[in-house]
């Protein structure tokens, strides 16, 4: 991990408020594991703190980030032009742990895919992917993983299953029967809670990438905590002990 100067290569609008940002680093980052993130300086004088973003992709000094515009930091970020200078602190946090399983199931939706994209790339072809979004237009976001044949749910039914991604997963759960599966997920809290409800009975292993507001990104401030079932010390730092947690350790 280090704080590295970087320049914007491109900062492209994919669809609606999704952007893909590629940054050229002045020197290589450390070894990147799927699920790790960076703290990115937003090149705008009104933004004080850095913002955490999952490493969407990384290779040859280019780090790629996919982000959705949701507030003042990301609004400012989407205005960053080619060659604009910034700083990238990373790689940070503990990524996903890939253990040998019969099937790795990745469930995600919306911008959540940014957190599992590198994981999907790493998992090769032994993975079952579920992706949910509002309509078929949004599928532009997962263009480069379409070849992995993800099961798709759209809220408006314009493509794939009509409904939310957890219902789609539930409908297909029987196909995993008897198999040794592990779930990997990243997305809104509501989705994670729904997944939990579906697998409560079997306590299926499940790794969750959580997103919390951060100030430092590497354990200094205790700003980014998530509540766990550890009674002695319930609040764990998402940036340091996470951002990937065992679902069954979380107190949702």
């Amino acid at each position, binding site marked *: *991990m*280090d*704080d590295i100067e970087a320049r914007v290569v491109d900062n492209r609008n994919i669809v609606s408020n999704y952007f893909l940002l590629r940054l050229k680093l002045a020197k290589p980052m450390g070894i990147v594991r799927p699920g790790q993130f960076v703290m990115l*300086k937003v090149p705008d004088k*009104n*933004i*004080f*703190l*850095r913002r955490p973003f999952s490493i969407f992709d990384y290779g040859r000094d280019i780090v790629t980030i996919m982000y959705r515009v949701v*507030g*003042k*930091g990301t609004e400012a970020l989407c205005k960053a032009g080619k060659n604009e200078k910034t*700083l990238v*602190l990373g790689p940070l946090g503990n990524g996903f742990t890939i253990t040998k399983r019969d099937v790795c199931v990745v469930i995600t939706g919306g911008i959540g895919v940014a957190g599992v994209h590198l994981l999907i790339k790493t998992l090769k072809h032994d993975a079952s992917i579920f992706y949910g979004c509002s309509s078929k237009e949004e599928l532009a976001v997962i263009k480069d993983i379409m070849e992995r044949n993800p099961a798709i749910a759209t809220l408006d039914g314009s493509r794939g299953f009509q409904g939310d991604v957890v219902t789609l997963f539930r409908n297909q759960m029987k196909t995993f029967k008897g198999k040794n599966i592990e779930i990997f997920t990243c997305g809104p809290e509501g989705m994670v809670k729904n997944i939990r409800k579906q697998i409560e009975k079997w306590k299926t292993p499940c790794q969750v990438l959580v997103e*919390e*507001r*951060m*100030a*430092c990104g*590497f*354990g*200094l*401030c*205790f*700003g*980014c*905590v*998530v*509540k766990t079932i550890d009674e*002695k*010390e*319930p*609040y764990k730092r998402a940036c*340091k002990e996470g951002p990937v947690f065992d679902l069954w350790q979380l107190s949702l």
Partner: protein
Amino acid sequence: MATISLTFFGKRLKNPVMNASGTLGYSNEIESLWGVETLGAYVTKGLSLRPHHGNPTPRVWDERSGMINSIGLQNVGIERFFDEHFPFFQKKRTPVIVNFFGFTEEEYLDCARRIKPDRLIVALEMNLSCPNIKAGGISFGKDPQTVYEIVKKVKGITPIPVLAKLTPEVKNIVDIARAAYEAGIDGLTLINTMPAAIVDIKRKRVPIKGGFSGPALKPIALRAVYECSKAVPVPIIGVGGIMDADDAVSFLMAGASAVQVGSATFVDPYAIPKIIEGIGRYADKNGCRNLHEIIGITHE
């Protein structure tokens, strides 16, 4: 070359720069970037007698000229700190200032009692911004009388030098500094965060209320340091919005003997080593052989 080392309560510190409490983890978090032995002294996260869980999230929020935090004093407690983290500072021979707090007077006293003198412990730093449960949640640092009483008692219990860390949200910070001085305080840390709130206009709510830190605090902190250092003859540690070496030098000139750097580390994790280097460069460039030549120079 100029020396920027100093003697603080009889201990030698390499330089006058410390982290601000609560902004540099428990011990080794920064080590992959730089070592804590770089610091003049390491200031611990606020510690209490018993472990404390802290507040739910959101705990941090960005604001144009600083940030708001509402960590809620989460910490593992004094015992675990000394068991699990203090040995790290011993190994690294890094002087430590122990920041502590309590929700009752007894808790402050128990904390002070538990912390045993040690070659590496430079001072205790009492965070007086903590809510006093018996006084309906009003913080200890708000009234000269309350401050006088608690400082007097803590001083009666521990042989370790004690710093009082004051909140700026008071009627007159100089009165509070004087009360602490009359009660026998050894030094002051000025200032803690300023209460503030954020409005999220998109979601039409106040997502966070908490303490405001960062550059916005600097002129408020400078005035506190300037006025208090003229009013009471004990060393002062300046803190609030220090982002670079010039800011640190401003605090020294205003009357601080040392400085602490908090939020700047979140913006630039190398802020502290850069500030230390910058102070050295400032001293060299200005033919200042010793920091005493500039500490409080604006008083004249």
